[in-house]
């Protein structure tokens, strides 16, 4: 039995179709995922992401504890700012990718993927053990609502007292929406400008309704997890379980920049990650672009021109924005150069694809 979102009744009233996602029943789509995808690219989409995990790390040594536990340099992040970073195993393998918000000098919030909530909480607890820092899983206290798309700043500005235009990308601030105190952050995972609102479970319906009403004249649509997946794929963003898992390091995923070797002190995975950096990855995350309408999907084989199996697709879809099939796959570096001609095995049919630079889609700013 999966746990319903605090917004379940609203979704049901909107005719949502639900899916079980890491033990949570979440809306996968309302009307159609293509219209929802388009709304996020051209106007705005309203997402319920309450399944995400919020883990607080607080105390005099919260910063150093996170510097040790994660690959990023979190103690250097200013209050009111956030960082995308990773929790790695001592082998260098990725346990999760997370966004860390510095809420106060001695208080951080680590937002983890729902499926990894237990692992992240327990790893953080173990790794923070030797520091004066307390790790508390607050996931059940929070609802998370995201507004994503080019019109999102106007929509959020209409419902809050916060100075939205002054909020930088990856910045956060306390704000009030309809009398509900919440954390407003300019973050997201769609490749568009957007905001994420962390509010109490009790405030969730009020906050959602306020955003839905303010967004209507702007063309905002409620948007489900189906379009969130095609949006992040077009934006070349890795998804845990597809592109990221224990047997890849940030270097294979093209995200070596998140590993801050220059930060002070030891951190979990440093030795293995330094070795991987120096040796260079054996395979790298590569964009593949095809023709026609048939998409290569997770697990399909990538073939070299002579038919040899050279890798496997991690994510793939017919790109709603680009109207062609796109995919990501781990390939040997020499085959990942843009322009390299490859093929994918789509259920026995060999379709040509070309390696391209990621992301597939980048918003014009």
């Amino acid at each position, binding site marked *: 039995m999966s746990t319903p979102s605090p917004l379940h009744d609203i979704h049901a009233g909107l005719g949502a*179709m639900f899916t079980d996602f890491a033990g949570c029943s979440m809306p*996968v*789509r309302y009307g*159609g*995922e*293509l219209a929802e995808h388009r709304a996020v690219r051209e106007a705005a989409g309203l997402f319920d992401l309450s399944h995400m995990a919020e883990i607080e790390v607080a105390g005099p040594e919260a910063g150093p504890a996170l510097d040790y536990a994660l690959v990023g340099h979190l103690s250097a992040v200013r209050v009111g700012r956030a960082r995308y970073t990773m929790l790695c195993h001592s082998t260098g393998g990725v346990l999760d990718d997370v966004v860390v918000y510095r809420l106060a000098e001695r208080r951080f919030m680590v937002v983890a993927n729902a499926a990894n909530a237990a692992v992240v909480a327990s790893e953080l607890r173990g790794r923070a053990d030797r520091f004066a820092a307390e790790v508390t899983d607050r996931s059940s206290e929070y609802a998370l609502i995201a507004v994503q798309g080019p019109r999102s700043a106007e929509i959020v500005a209409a419902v809050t007292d916060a100075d939205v235009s002054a909020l930088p990308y990856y910045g956060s601030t306390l704000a009030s929406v309809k009398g509900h105190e919440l954390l407003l952050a300019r973050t997201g995972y769609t490749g568009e400008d957007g905001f994420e609102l962390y509010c109490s479970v009790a405030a969730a319906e009020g906050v959602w309704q306020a955003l839905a009403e303010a967004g209507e004249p702007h063309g905002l649509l409620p948007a489900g997890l*189906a379009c969130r*997946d*095609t949006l992040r794929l077009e934006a070349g963003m890795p998804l845990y379980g597809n592109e990221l898992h224990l047997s890849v390091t940030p270097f294979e995923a093209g995200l070596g920049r998140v590993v801050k070797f220059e930060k002070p002190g030891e951190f979990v995975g440093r030795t293995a990650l330094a070795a991987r950096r120096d040796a260079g990855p054996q395979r790298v995350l590569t964009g593949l672009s095809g023709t026609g*309408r*048939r*998409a290569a*999907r997770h697990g399909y084989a990538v073939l070299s021109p002579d038919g040899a199996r050279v890798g496997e697709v991690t994510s793939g*879809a*017919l790109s*709603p924005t680009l109207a062609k099939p796109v995919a990501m796959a781990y390939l040997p570096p020499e085959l990942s150069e843009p322009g390299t001609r490859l093929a994918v095995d789509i*259920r026995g049919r060999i379709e040509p694809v070309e390696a391209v630079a990621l992301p597939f889609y980048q918003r014009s700013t």
Partner: protein
Amino acid sequence: MSVLKNLSYTEDHEWLDLDGDVATVGITQHAAEALGEVVFVQLPSVGERVAQGDVCGEIESTKSVSDLYAPATGEVLEMNDSTVETPELINSDPYGKGWLFRVHVEEVPDLLDAEAYAALVEGRA
């Protein structure tokens, strides 16, 4: 969810509109909704003989790929070109413009009536 009274159904969520020994075939609204938005359809060719229960095509949505099963044995008489060109017709009008193909049925198979199919999708069967 709509199930039309005048149609026959299979457990693979296809519908058949039988007119003598010619059946028009499509997928049900329930199937279309479960698939998500259809972006690609591959149908059997005209003149091809399909056998009941065999895979005769493919329906691909934004999120998944599903096989299309032949609901009856016989020769394919016609395929719906507009559905191939505009696969979203399967979502917008699954029992109408989104029909898939017509088959000359050699022997009418065991099919579900509307009530039995509705029971199947509601988990009552």
